[in-house]
């Protein structure tokens, strides 16, 4: 914008090249003054315009019918640069392994300003309730912060995440955050984030997933019920014949004139009926072990995410911060998705419950890795741990340390994993936490 006066000066100089030196000097002085004067006017005008533009954008920010936040993420920008220089590129794995590092960074992101809509949406008395570090608004149970770091590290142009934030009155609001991400470190200083209240949407989504799971479970139970009834009938009939024949046999023998022929026929039928009952059991076992498993190849990472969605609210209420890290390009596994989802749900809730009385951060770390020919899912909590004398019994049916617990959860989990050809185990360090893990054969393995 300072180009125009220089061009004007250039034209004037070309024209003046034929003039005498003294005129030339005078002319140059005039042009110089003129340029300075013109430049000053322009600078003033530009400053005015800039102020006007800033006022206008501030008015847009302030009056927008959507929640907007101005945030300073400089510390995160520097941290990403430092990590990359140190050769760390898998931010997900890094921060899953070091959740406290992410926690520290969250304390360094500063909310500079929020608009009037935000104040209203959050039911706050004024802007002051928000200004300050992000960790006051974004609770420890939020697991999206690391996703933002990953998006920054990947130079994504935009990022959106479904987070939950704490209102000034302490209640929790589900929100969709969207922001254009900076392309240089300078841009981290002033990031505009928009936020949409999705609390009711999330509640509906959770209800839908719960309903779908319930339908699948109900269908399963009715199938199991029908199967059990069928087996009961098939086994009960020969059992009934055995009891009746045995009793008849005794009665014929105990008569004043024992009828040995009748007694012998009854005893022979007892053997035949018992053989029939044994065959029913053998056929049932063969049927169950050969029956094709319900469901085809499944994406285990997606199953884990669905499980997390299903119990998101419970985990949040238990104060657990869930960190999930899955290897990339994982193969599918052949499994019943509902059963595996139930196993994961069980492990997530157990882990969160193990930490619910802990004062500090309640990190629940979920990792999904590909081993040689199998997939291994580990759920690690930082709870009180399990005493060594109890550890061997945790998978026993009807064994529970929870008040009112039935003690079937882990027994069913292990049964289910083993029925899929997998293995399940536990490791625990009292005072440091517990890791439950299971492995399932990868497809084609």
């Amino acid at each position: 914008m300072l180009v125009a006066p220089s061009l004007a000066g250039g034209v004037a100089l070309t024209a003046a090249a034929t003039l005498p030196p003294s005129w030339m000097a005078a002319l140059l002085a005039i042009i110089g003054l003129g340029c300075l004067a013109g430049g000053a006017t322009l600078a003033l005008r530009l400053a005015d315009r800039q102020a006007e533009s800033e006022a206008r954008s501030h008015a847009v920010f302030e009056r927008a019918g959507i929640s907007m936040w101005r945030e300073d993420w400089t510390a995160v920008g520097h941290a990403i640069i430092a990590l990359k220089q140190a050769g760390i590129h898998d931010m997900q794995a890094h921060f899953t392994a070091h959740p406290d590092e992410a926690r520290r960074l969250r304390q360094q992101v500063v909310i500079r300003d929020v608009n009037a809509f935000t104040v209203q949406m959050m039911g706050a008395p004024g802007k002051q309730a928000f200004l300050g570090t992000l960790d006051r608004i974004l609770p420890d149970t939020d697991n999206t912060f690391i996703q933002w770091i990953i998006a920054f590290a990947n130079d994504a142009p935009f990022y959106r995440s479904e987070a939950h934030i704490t209102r000034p009155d302490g209640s929790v609001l589900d929100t969709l955050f969207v922001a254009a991400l900076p392309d240089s470190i300078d841009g981290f200083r002033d990031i505009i984030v928009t936020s949409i209240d999705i609390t009711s949407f999330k509640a509906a989504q959770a209800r839908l997933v719960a309903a779908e799971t319930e339908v699948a479970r109900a269908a399963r139970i009715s199938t199991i019920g029908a199967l059990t009834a069928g087996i009961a009938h098939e086994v009960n009939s020969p059992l009934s014949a055995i009891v009746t024949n045995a009793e008849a046999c005794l009665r014929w023998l105990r008569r004043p004139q024992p009828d040995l022929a009748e007694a012998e026929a009854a005893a022979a039928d007892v053997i035949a009926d018992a053989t029939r009952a044994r065959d029913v059991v053998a056929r049932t076992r063969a049927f169950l072990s050969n029956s094709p498993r319900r469901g085809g190849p499944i994406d285990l990472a997606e199953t884990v995410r669905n499980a997390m969605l299903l119990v998101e609210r419970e985990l949040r209420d238990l104060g657990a911060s869930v960190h999930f890290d899955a290897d990339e390009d994982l193969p599918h596994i052949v499994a019943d998705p509902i059963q595996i989802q139930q196993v994961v749900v069980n492990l997530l809730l157990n882990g969160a419950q193990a930490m619910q009385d802990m004062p500090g951060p309640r990190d629940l770390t979920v990792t999904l890795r590909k081993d040689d020919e199998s997939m291994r899912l580990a759920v690690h909590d930082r709870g009180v741990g399990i005493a060594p004398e109890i550890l061997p019994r945790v998978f026993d049916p009807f064994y529970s340390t929870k008040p009112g617990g039935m003690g079937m959860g882990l027994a069913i989990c292990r049964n289910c994993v083993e029925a899929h050809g997998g293995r399940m185990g536990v490791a625990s360090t009292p005072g440091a936490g517990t890791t439950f893990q299971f492995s399932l054969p990868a497809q084609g393995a």
Partner: protein
Amino acid sequence: MAGGPIIAVVDDDAAIRTALSRLLRSLDYRVRLFASAEAFLADGDEVDCLVTDVQMPGMNGLELQRAVRRSRPELPVIIITAFPEAAIREQAVAAGARHFLSKPFAAETIAQCLREATGHAG
């Protein structure tokens, strides 16, 4: 023995039929065996008590009981089943069944039911 009451046993399971026949004869009843409800309705006139299974192909035991109630309301009916669900029991009792037994049952249990139904001391 030759003059005892005649008990009709209706069950599609041959092993049950044979075993029940053997037991009831040891209790001095005479026994007629039917593999289906339809077979009983066609040829079961001369009996003093009906013992029927519930789950059978074709007409089931509860339908047979209702049919018998219309044609021979005085005939005592004893229902035996491998599915002792409350709903089936209620239906059977509502339709006038004397007794409802779950398979497998003790000999003394059915002996008692038959004594009550026929007045025979078997």
